[in-house]
């Protein structure tokens, strides 16, 4: 019986990818390729935000201050790049738990009090999980991103 339980636990662990050390390195490498640079980074950010607002149009209200009603305005582009900049720090510190904790706490402070429903984080995740493979074309590990994104989002939300 005990053996069976242990076996089942092993199978479960093998099936559900966790955001473990190797997975984090995997995510980091893929992020580096997708995040790119220059114009390309602006367009990558633009595509992500269009996909978020297409899923949750009412979320635009939260971005009124940064011209969220038109994602192509310089104000919003700047905001979009700033957001990806924060996300970039989080991804790049995935292998340094203390630095990651500090960054996530910082982001948590910036977001708390803004009344962001969990569904908006889900919209962000869904957008990212579609635009990343579109950008990468191959060598895309969905399960790894699924796990590690949740870790980052939970850190910003302050709860699971």
């Amino acid at each position: 019986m005990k053996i069976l339980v242990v076996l089942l636990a092993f199978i479960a662990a093998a099936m559900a990818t966790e955001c473990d050390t190797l997975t984090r390195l995997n995510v980091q490498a893929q992020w580096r390729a997708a995040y790119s640079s220059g114009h390309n980074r602006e367009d990558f950010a633009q595509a992500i935000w269009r996909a978020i607002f297409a899923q949750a149009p009412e979320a635009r209200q939260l971005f009124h201050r940064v011209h969220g009603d038109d994602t192509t305005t310089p104000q919003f582009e700047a905001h979009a790049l700033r957001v990806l900049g924060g996300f970039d720090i989080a991804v790049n510190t995935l292998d340094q738990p203390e630095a990651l904790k500090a960054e996530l706490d910082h982001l948590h402070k910036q977001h708390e009090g803004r009344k962001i429903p969990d569904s908006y984080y889900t919209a962000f995740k869904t957008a990212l999980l579609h635009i990343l493979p579109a950008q990468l074309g191959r060598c895309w590990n969905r399960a790894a991103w699924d796990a590690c994104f949740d870790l980052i989002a939970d850190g910003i939300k302050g709860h699971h």
Partner: protein
Amino acid sequence: MWYFLLLVGLAAAATDTRKEKSIQYITSSQNLHIDKLEHDLHELEEEFNKLSHEVDDKTVRQLKARITNLEGTGCPLHEASCGGDVPECVSDLLFCDGHKDCKNGRDENPEVCSLAITHVGSSYTGLATWTGCEENEPHHAIITITASERKSFFPARVWLRAVLSFETDEHTHTVRNIPLRGYYNFGRRAVVLGPERGTTPTYGVLCHFNLGDDDHADCKVVYPASREICAHFNAARY
């Protein structure tokens, strides 16, 4: 008095028939003249038909496409050309997403955003020549789209499932079928396919529909990780 009237009447009738006859004569000679003209025209037409015919639109489109391919777009990685008179490159993540990003709006042009290539059941086939990976004689390779999905919140890609089939033995007719998944990229007019989830990675397929229409593509069978080219084939829809 009555007698005189009758005479006049008869005379009139006589001149009437003569006039009619002459009119008939003129009419028939005019008709003959027209017939001759028609005959001459036919002869000219026949001579004209013997000259080579005008080139059909399809050939011109394909030629123009080949010239465009040779010229190149000058667009960097991840970007595609807007086409038109003034050259402009736009991210392929922003094509066909409902927002005009090209100055000429061509990234939202119905022709550019046509879904014809991705229709389920579309098959593209050609004679594959292997240059690596396997020791195969040239043989037919077929890619068939088995499923397609376009997410409303991210319409710049059409996610695809497909099967790559090719004959491995001509005598026993052994056919290998490889399930693939990937997407269609509107901007680059490319179908990009890699191994289906949970299958051992053997081959991937890259097809560029850069030959001027939705029915012809330049396809490569590649190793999914390195994109090293294994085989090449010019595919046509059937």
